[in-house]
């Protein structure tokens, strides 16, 4: 480990300690803001873990997020909380394996459409199950957590996510990924097991996303499909990761923090015009990056030749 990495770690460590102490000093509202922000930073980083190197744009974020939340809603009264989280992670992992095995050979726009459909499929399946099998729509989560408890859990998960992302970037596995990202066919010819790597990344990323949903669920007390399978979560995650840059370790963070604060500021200051301003902002972002996200991907693909 060289000096630069050490410094980086020290700095990051101090930042995490400061962030962890923050709820003791600030009001509940700001803890709530930090909580929401940490949630999205984790989601965007986990999303970029898979979608960054593979360039598979996934809109399935909320499918896993919602499954995590629902798992907690169903199990929170029958087993201790840490076990519930483990179950959620397990379910997310199995679901990701099934989805990954069946779809990761799809490419480009087909994958986007499939993942968008997946979120809806999961939501409808859960609804159908609740309507026809259990006869309950809303479920209650009565766990003794306040905002700061949820925040600390999310912060820990965010740290783990960053460590995973960092470790992958430095390993042999990361090298294979770089090859895969540059040219999938070449990578395959060079002996990289492309499908296995994609699957592994998808499973890691989806499991983290499932855990974010599971950890945040106790904050809402009451869960129903329309609450936890809100497609906005997928879109926000995508926009944040893309704005910051899905290929870099800190990219999603750089995208998520300002966008989240901006949304928060808009809803405080312009509660009646939020959607309009948001739309205008997106147009503005597109104008600032006139060729849009595709150009960015192209640029990366060419390795900055231009």
């Amino acid at each position, binding site marked *: 480990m060289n000096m630069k990495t050490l410094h980086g770690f020290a700095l990051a460590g101090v930042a995490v300690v400061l962030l962890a102490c923050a709820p003791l000093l600030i*009001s*509940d*509202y*700001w*803890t*709530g*803001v930090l909580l*929401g922000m940490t949630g999205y930073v984790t989601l965007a980083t986990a999303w970029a873990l898979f979608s960054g190197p593979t360039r598979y744009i996934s809109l399935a974020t909320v499918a896993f997020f919602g499954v995590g939340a629902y798992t907690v809603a169903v199990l929170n009264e029958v087993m201790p909380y840490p076990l519930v989280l483990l179950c959620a992670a397990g379910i997310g992992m199995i679901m990701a394996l099934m989805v990954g095995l069946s779809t990761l050979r799809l490419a480009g726009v087909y994958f986007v459409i499939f993942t968008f459909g997946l979120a809806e499929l999961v939501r*409808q399946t859960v*609804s*159908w199950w*609740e*309507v*026809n099998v259990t*006869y*309950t*729509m*809303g479920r*209650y989560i*009565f766990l003794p957590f*306040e*905002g700061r408890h949820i925040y600390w859990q999310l912060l820990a998960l965010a740290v783990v996510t960053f460590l995973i992302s960092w470790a992958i970037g430095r390993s042999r596995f990361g090298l294979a990924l770089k090859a895969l990202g540059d040219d999938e066919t070449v990578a395959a010819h060079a002996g990289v097991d492309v499908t296995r790597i994609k699957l592994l990344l998808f499973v890691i990323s989806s499991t983290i996303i499932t855990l974010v949903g599971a950890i*945040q669920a106790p*904050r*809402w*007390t*009451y869960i*129903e499909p*329309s*609450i936890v399978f*809100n497609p*906005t979560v997928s879109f926000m995650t995508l926009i944040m990761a893309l*704005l*910051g840059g899905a290929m870099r370790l800190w990219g999603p963070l*750089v*995208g998520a*923090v*300002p966008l989240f*604060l*901006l949304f*928060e*500021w808009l*809803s*405080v*200051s312009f*509660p*009646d015009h*939020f*959607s309009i301003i948001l739309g205008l902002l997106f147009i503005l972002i597109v104008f*600032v*990056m006139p*060729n849009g996200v595709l*150009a*960015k991907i192209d*640029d990366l693909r060419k390795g*900055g030749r*231009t």
Partner: protein
Amino acid sequence: MKNLFSEGGRMTRRLTTCAIAALSITAATHGVAAQERDKVTVGYAISKSGPNAGGADMTVTPNYELWVKEVNAAGGLKMPDGSQLPIEVIAYDDRSSAEEVVRAVERLASQDKVDIILPPWGTGFNLAVAPLMAKFGYPHLAGAAVTDKASDFVKRWDTSFWFMGGSEDYVSAFTEILVAEREAGRINDKIAMISVADGFGIDLVKAARPSFEAAGFDVAYDKSFPPETSDFATILNEAGNAEADTFVAFTYPPHTFALTKQAKIASYSPPVFYLGVGAAFPVYPKIADGSVEGIMSLGGVDPNNELNNAYRAKHEELVGRGADYWGSVLIYASLQMLEQTIERVGLDKAEIAKELSSGTFSTVLGSETQLEDNQLRAINWVGQWQDGKFVAVSSEGSDGTIQVKLPKPDWE
């Protein structure tokens, strides 16, 4: 291309700075405002956009605005010492998101430090904010929230108050009417029942099945449909084949409206025609093209209650449209109770909660409105369109209700 990247980076940095600066400015101004006592700050987060906006805008928001307008026009909220303080409102949009509504209430409580927080719209969102309201000590007057668990919630959060009853209440009052009609020989013992596969429909149908069966009815047709459904021809056809004299539909407004129109086209007019949310909207007769006589639903008002009539007239005058015949009046009554409580005990949150649960109030519902176990029970459970008004009905017609008129006449 490189330039674009650094440009993007600079843009992001600038945005961050702007956002942080703006956030701290807003935070600072709100902090100062809450310190002085020349006004009462009332805050709420409500769904102004997203899927919940329709319901919130029909039942809740107009009543909040109406009440604030009225109180301020009369010089402000009366305090125990006789002085009056105007109301200042801080309203946020929760964008129909549970996380937003939770954070908005945290913001109202710990950032804006408002004196009173009014609840959001919907059962789910009221439950989402309930633990926070209790934690910060704010009395929680859950208005637009139908739940059978209110008695449990009152134990869990003793400063919570529930104003809209539970599914079992609505269903059992309706069952009583059906039993009386069957005994009078006007209907047979078969029921055709449909429900939307979403919160409201599932909750009601879950209460309805055992209630109907216990009363000796045969639910000959029982079907749930997805919320996106807009074509009910098949469902109505099948319901018609069940030869039931009673048709029950636990639906949301789009289904309620579509069902009415399509039943009319199909000339399906069973003696008892009961629909869900939307049938008590003032706009409903227009949608049904006039022929609403005899249609039943949840809610209803007492047409002989002068207070209520005055309230409806005022709502129309100040809001610009009529109040719905179910939730609106309950929300407004909860605000009147809050106003009178503040006049008696001031702005101490714990005192307000205590007075709300034990006091007697004069509201649009009557001159002696009281809560039982922190719940409003003086609710009209079943309503029916009679002579262009959606009135509260019961089998006998007593206690502010009119006698139900069945069978429903044919469509005009």
